[in-house]
Every structure is written in C-alpha cells, then in structure tokens.
C-alpha cells in the first residue's frame, strides 16, 4: 500500500490497463462481454423495457375496466394480460432491476474491478433475456399463460389449462430463477471477498449491505418456486399428480411453495430499495445517515422475518386458526424494523439543509406512499379483516402502494442518482421534477380509490363487472388516473434517452457523495479504478476528499485481469485473483439451456437434448486457459 501522489490518470499511463479490461467492440463481440458494468447496465435497461411493456399491459386492462360490461377485450385476453402484468413486474422487472443496480454498483462501491464470476454474470443476463422475450413472444402469439402470476393449481394444471401458455410459464419461471440465483451467488462472493483493503464489514456502504441481504434472500426463496414450477411442469407433462387432490396430491402444497418464495420476493425487491433510500438521504443531507448499525440490523431482521410471513396469502384457505395466528404476529413484527428505518431516516433529515434534487424528491415520495402501503399491510395481517378484503381491490391498492412506494420510487431515485455515474451525464432536473409530480399524483389517484372499491366488494382479476354494482364511476376515474401515472413514467424514460446525449456533463462526483463509486470517472473506465483504493472510514470520499492524500493498492499487473481478494470481516489483502476475459460461451450455454427449457414444452425429449448440448457449452466454458499469459500474448 502506498500513499500515492502519483495517481496518474493520463491516457498514456492507463492505456495498457484499459486495453486489458476492454470489452471488444462490434456486434458479434457484444455477446462476449463479461465486464460487470456492461452486464449490470444491460440488466437495468432490459428491466426498464419490461417495466414499460408491463405498464402498457396494465393500461390496456384499465381501458377494459373503464366501464361496466365493456367489451373491448375478451375474458381470455384479459386474463392473459393480468397474468403477464404480474409475472413481468415481479420476475422480469423488479428483481432484475435491483440485481442490475447491484451488479453495476457493488464492485464500484467496494473498490474492485469486476465481479467474482464475470462469465456467470453474463450467462445470467442471457438467461433473463431469453426467458423474458419468450414469454412476450407467447403473448403476441395469443398463447400467454392466463392463470395469474401465482398460477394456483388445479386451475394451472393440465386439466384446466391445457394450452401451451402455462407450459411457457412453468418453463420460463424455472429458467429465469437460474439467472436470479447466479446473480445472488455472484453478489455474495463479490461483497464478502473483494472489498477494498480496509473496508471492514462495519464500513460497508448501506446499499452494499442491502444487496448482500437481498442476495441471501434470493438464495433461500428462489429454490422453492423453482421446485414448485418443476413439480407443476411434471404434473402437466407426465401426469405426476403432485397437486391433484384426486390423485393423492394437494393443491395447497403449491400455495405453500409459491408463497414461501412469493412473500420474501416482495422484500427481495424492497430491501435494496431501502439501501437506495439511505444512500440518497446521506448524500443530499451531506451527513451520514443516523443509526448505521440499527439500519443494517433492520435490513437483516426484515430478511429473516419475511420468510415467516407466507401464510398471509392463505388466510382464507381454511387452515387452522391457531396456526394462522402466528403469521399475524409475524406480520406485525416486520413492521418494527420498518419503523426503525423510517424513524432513523427522519432523524437523519431532522434540521438539515436538504438539496431537493429529483432523487431526493422520489425519496420523500417514498415516505408518503410506502407508509400508506405499510399501514394497509398491517391491516391485512389481521385475519378477520383479511377475510373481507383478500383478493379484492383493497389488496390491489395495498400491493401497489407497497411495491410502487417501496420499490419503484426508490428505484427511480437510484436511477436519477446513479445515471450520471453510468453515462457521464446528468438527467434533466426539470423533466425529472415533472415526472416525479406526475408519478406521485398518478399513483395516489390510481390506487387510492381501489381501497374503496375493494371495501365495496369488487374482487380482483375480473375482466368485467355488472353495471348495477355501482363500481363504474370509480373505475372510470382510476383509468384516467392510470394515464397520468403512465405519463409520469414516460417522462423519465424520455429524460433518460435524451440526457444520454444532451445532458449536462456530470464530472466524477456531481452530488458530492461519500461512497467509492464516485471516485471513479463518469462513466467509469474499463478497469473501474486505476489503483484499487484503500479505505479508512465509512465515508471515504468525505473523510479523504483530497485526492492526493488517499491511499491506494499498487502492484496489480496491468497486462492481465487481476483483482485483489481480501478477508471476509476485516478486508485484509489475501491474494490476487486472475480473472477471465471476454467469452462467447456464457451466451452459448444460455442458448442451449434455453433450448432445453423451451423444447420441453413441445417434446420432453428436447430437454435431454438441451442438457446434452449444455455439456459442450460447459466444456468450452471450462476449457483450460493459461492464466499466467497476459491478454496481449493470448
């Protein structure tokens, strides 16, 4: 380690390093990229595209519900729409978006050059892409799944959903969770083993903590939905009867498996969002967030308790009341860590002079919307009340308050906040504030009246309702409001596209933030950091604002991809890791595995073919290289 006055960023000095870490240009080479920033960026952009698509599906649904007995859409198409809306938002937007942010930011925030398994990272992205595109192709072919994003059996089983739609669902859900698990493993190892020297766990940024908690949650939650969807696929393809009551199976087994994943899923999405909130508040108040330890413990507690809540979704299935009571208690318990976090943030905001830039506005919007969602969440944790509002529009209102407030607002805050780091340019503040206003107003106008509709007895997932029910006027207003909300989202997307070329130059640290990603250039160089930084506090850029006084690691070779591995707790330097470079094999493996999963729907034997082909791809992937040879000689 050196005190480094020779931190030379001139092109001549960095050229060899840059070349080593470069992703080759060109269309074909695009499929060989493995660098964490490219993959993270692709995750974020792709997830935003799925977000927009799922949003459009929601708008079409709202048009159908604008009036009673409307005949704009048929029942089957409507059912496909809400199934795809839920599936896309949960599996193809929210989780990949948060993973994408994590993949892009974590290595920068902990001061390293790449993730631990770059090719696995790329593989995960292609799996995600193939799964999402396949489902939307199915929708355009008119054979999308139509049994809801939760696919309750027996409705989702072969007897009642004989078409290919459900096969798409079971295959692609199993498939995309491979991507989620790959990202989780990757993020955990990177966070635990690649932190910059001196970044003890106790100095890790709160956002990195939240990604760590999220990754562990993915590790425990996703396997159950994979197990569930594999069992369902076997039921459908080979008549295995896992979920068929007359064959000795149990339809409720599906619900247990699904919600054991499904409830933590909500927190998998929310936990990183909470990390974003802490990050943005610290930056825009220019002081550390109050209660670092409390906030970390709250994240971990949320992660744990969220696995004890799944029966919330099954209060009306006739399970014994005593058993259900524990889940009411757990549901109330999870409000405590949320309370701790909210009041830590309020304490942090107390009496500070705040810069009301767009990210901060989205954070303030989060408070109002998320708290309403949290309060209705405590209400539906009460069993008697839940029996009245379960599967009604009250729950539609509740879940959108939680997910828009608890995930979309923070995600958008993060988008405005890190966009300059990713692109080198700031997003327009003017458009940003308009977008925020429309989204905030639109969310409330769209979803608040749904509480009322639910209390008036309107069930969820109905493609139409009779005129005499008296739900028409509220639904009419909600549909109009949905377009206000959509306009708000559209403004941000437009803003992101326009600012890419026309935004103001950001500089390295436009917000004067404290974490390491702002020490890199905007956008970061191929190698992230010329010299890996050494960290002495939780707020490296505030405590050592003077560039020349910072400490750096020296001695990593510039002619091949090398990383520093550090110890788990104290982040003491341990060894040097030699990383693989660009490779086409992750893409090819994703293709053949995807072929196996998609082929399975039409002919089970094709799964075996995909399995066999994946051996070739894995062989290519693992083909020995000479790691001691530098890239140039390769």
């Amino acid at each position, binding site marked *: 380690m050196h005190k480094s006055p020779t931190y030379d960023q001139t092109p001549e000095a960095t050229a060899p390093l840059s070349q080593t870490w470069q992703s080759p240009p060109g269309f074909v080479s695009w499929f060989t990229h493995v660098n964490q920033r490219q993959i993270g960026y692709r995750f974020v952009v792709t997830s935003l595209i799925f977000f927009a698509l799922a949003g459009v599906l929601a708008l079409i649904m709202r048009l159908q519900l604008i009036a009673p007995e*409307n005949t*704009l859409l048929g029942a089957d198409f409507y059912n496909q729409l809400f199934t795809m809306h839920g599936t896309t938002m949960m599996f193809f937007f929210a989780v990949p978006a948060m993973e994408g942010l994590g993949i892009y930011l974590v290595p920068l925030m902990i001061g390293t050059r790449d993730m631990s398994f770059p090719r696995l990272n790329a593989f995960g992205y292609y799996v995600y892409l193939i799964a999402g595109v396949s489902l939307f192709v199915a929708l355009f072919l008119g054979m999308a799944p139509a049994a809801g994003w939760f696919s309750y059996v027996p409705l989702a089983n072969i007897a009642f959903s004989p078409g290919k739609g459900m096969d798409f669902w079971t295959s692609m859900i199993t498939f995309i969770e491979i991507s989620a698990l790959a990202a989780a493993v990757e993020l955990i190892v990177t966070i635990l083993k690649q932190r910059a020297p001196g970044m003890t766990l106790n100095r890790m940024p709160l956002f990195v903590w939240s990604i760590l908690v999220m990754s562990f949650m993915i590790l425990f939650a996703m396997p159950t939905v994979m197990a569930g969807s594999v069992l369902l696929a076997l039921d459908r393809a080979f008549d295995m009867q896992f979920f068929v009551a007359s064959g000795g199976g149990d339809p409720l087994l599906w619900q247990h498996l699904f919600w054991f994943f499904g409830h933590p899923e909500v927190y998998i999405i929310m936990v990183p969002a909470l990390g974003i909130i802490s990050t943005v508040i610290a930056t825009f108040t220019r002081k550390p967030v109050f209660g670092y330890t409390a906030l970390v413990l709250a994240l971990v507690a949320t992660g744990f308790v969220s696995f004890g809540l799944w029966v919330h979704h099954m209060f009306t299935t*006739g399970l014994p009341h005593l058993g259900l009571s524990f889940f009411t208690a757990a549901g*109330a*318990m999870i409000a405590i860590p949320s*309370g701790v976090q909210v009041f830590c943030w*309020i304490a942090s905001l107390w*009496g500070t002079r705040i810069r009301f830039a767009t990210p901060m506005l989205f954070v303030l919007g989060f408070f109002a919307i998320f708290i309403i969602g949290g309060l209705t969440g405590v209400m539906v944790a009460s069993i008697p009340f839940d029996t009245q509002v379960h599967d009604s529009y009250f729950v539609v209102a509740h879940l959108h308050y939680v997910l828009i407030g608890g995930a979309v607002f923070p995600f958008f805050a993060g988008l405005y906040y890190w966009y300059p780091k990713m692109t080198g340019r700031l997003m327009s503040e003017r458009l940003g504030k308009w977008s925020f206003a429309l989204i905030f107003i639109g969310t409330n106008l769209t979803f608040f009246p749904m509480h009322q509709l639910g209390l008036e007895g309107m069930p969820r997932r109905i493609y139409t309702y009779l005129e005499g029910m008296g739900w*028409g006027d509220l639904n009419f207003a909600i549909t109009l409001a949905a377009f206000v909300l959509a306009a708000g989202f559209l403004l941000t997307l437009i803003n992101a596209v326009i600012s890419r070329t026309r935004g103001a130059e950001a500089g390295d640290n436009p917000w004067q933030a404290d974490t390491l990603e702002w020490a890199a250039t905007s956008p970061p160089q191929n190698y992230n950091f010329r010299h890996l930084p050494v960290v002495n506090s939780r707020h490296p850029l505030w405590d050592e604002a003077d560039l020349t006084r910072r400490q750096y690691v020296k001695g990593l070779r510039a002619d091949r991809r090398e990383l520093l591995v550090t110890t788990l707790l104290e982040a003491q330097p341990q060894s040097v890791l030699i990383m693989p470079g660009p490779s086409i094999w992750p893409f090819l493996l994703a293709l053949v595995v995807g072929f196996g999963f998609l082929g399975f729907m039409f002919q089970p034997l094709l799964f075996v073919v995909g399995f066999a082909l994946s051996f070739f791809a894995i062989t290519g992937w693992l083909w020995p290289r000479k790691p001691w040879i530098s890239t140039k000689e390769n």
Partner: protein
Amino acid sequence: MKRQTSRILSSLTSAARQGLPDGCGLIGLCLLSGGTAAQQGARQSTLQPASTQAQSIELLWWIMLWAGVAIFLAVMALLAWALWHGRHRESPLGLTASKNFVLLAGVAIPALVLVILVGGSLLLGRSIASTPPPDAIQVRVTGWMWWWEIEYLDSAGNVTATTANEMHVPVDRPVAIELVSGDVIHSFWVPQLQGKTDMVPGKVNSSWFVATEAGQYRGQCAEFCGLQHALMAFVVVARPEAEFNAWLAHQAEPAPTPTTDAAQQGLEVFEQSCGQCHRVRGTRAVGVIGPDLTHLASRRTLAAATLTNNQGHLAGWIGDPQRVKPGNKMPRTLLSPQDMNNLLAYLGTLE
C-alpha cells in the same frame, strides 16, 4: 361515530360520481344493456354489514382505519417538521436525541400499537372461526366453473333440497356452510354477511354467520377460477324463519307436472335437449353437469347472478349461452321457434 364516517365517505363518493359522465355511455360498448341482476338492489359492500360477523369485522376496519390515519398523519407531520426545521439554519438532532427518538417512535410506540392490534384481531378471529352453534341450518355449497350448487342438509347430513346460485337463509338463526369444490379453487364471499373462505378440491372448509337483517345480499367468487371468474356470483336472500321454512319445503318438492299443452311439449323438449346436463326432479331429466333446474322459475337470476330471470333473458341464454358467458359449459341449443316457445312455457311452470 362510525355510521357518521361511513355517511361522510359515501356522500363524498356520490358527490364525486355526480361530476363524472356515465362511463358506459361514453364508451358505447355495453353488451348486457340494462336489466342485469345487480340492479335488483343487491350490493356487496363490506361497509353495509347485515350479520353479526360482518358487523364486527366492519367495526375492526373503522378502528384500524382511524388508527392508521392517526399514525400516517403523525409520521407525515414529523417528516414535514424535520424538513422545515433546518430550512434556514442547520440544527440536526444530537446523537442521544436521535437514539431516543428512534427507540420511542420507531420501536416502543409501534410495538404497543401492534400488540393491541394483534391481540384484538386474534380474539375477534377466534370468535369468527369458532364452530357454529348446534342449532345452525346446514348448507353445502359446491363451487363449479362458474356457478354455485347449493344443497340444504338435514341433521343426518342428507340432502333435502338442491338449488343453484341462490341461497335463502333465515334471519337471526345461525347458518353453517360446508364449502367444497367440484373443479378448481373458488372462494365463497358474501361481503355483507361474512368474509371469504376458499373452496379447495380435496378439502371440506366451513364458515358460518347469523344474518341480522332481512334482505338480498350478493356474493361473488373471490378466487380467480378461470375464464368467467368475473361472472360467478350468487344471491343470498335472508328472510324471517317462517318464510324461509316454507321456501325450503317448496324447494324440496319435485317439479309440478305441466298442465298446458305447450308446457307438456316443452317438457319433452327439455328431456331431449337439456336433460343430459340438467336435472328437474320428478322428470326423466337427470343430468348432473349443469345446475339443478327443478325450481328455476322461482329464482331471481340466471347464469350465476349475471342476468335477471325473465323470459327474454332466458330465451337469449338458451339460444346463445356463449355470447353472455363465453367459455361456459352450456352449448348453443338449436331449437325451432315452436320448440323454444314450448320450452320457455315449461320452464315458466317450474315455480
């Protein structure tokens, strides 16, 4: 207090409604124009409870609502004050003050509120989930895609009367309901009488309530059950016990023998064209795929509370069931106008 609030809320809603154009007219795409079942006055609002169970849940709702409103306003006020406070001069909270603030507002107060809420909700839940009193009327409801089969049981568990999509119950006497499914998961929900309970294949669930006011209450399937989940509703008619007993005795009887020529010919048409799926007790029509139609003419609605029961709707439904409820199991029946008239005449006798 709660009545007042509910009145204020509903007057607000209706005020909002007056300002809006009629959605249906604006879009001009209405299929079932007029005469739908819901217009008979049967609503399904949880805020107009008519049973002891639904009333106590409504009370729980108002308590939670006002507690929630108070908490929300308090947090928002704290947040606003936190932001306002440092506008001109920075005056952040000290470490100890922050700690106490978080412990009090973020841990102690929520814990207290939640303990009260969880305790109250569990006690209420226990009373609602308890077994029904022994003098309860026994009814078995079976969910089918997409209609409800309703069977009245005697104390030995034998079926005394079968009907569909319309359930009559006595006022002020407990009604115990056995819930089963014939195909996929459905959920039995009559918001004004009781919260929902799912009907799960392979399981027998139960629910019970005591209706406290005579009236008509609409129920609707609350678990997504496929294509026509939206049009799977039914009507509950609560009436004084004597009236109910008379109704039940009548429903238990077989269908009357038709007396007019037209009705007699209509019975033949029915036995030939409808009897494979539908049953009319006392005739050769013994199908079990569709609803029992023994007392069809006494029912208020058709097609699972989608249409009011009148001759026009009945003719339209028989002529093309797939237009009103695409995907349901009833095929289009091709009948000559003469046969159709006779059939309608016969069905009209099934009081």
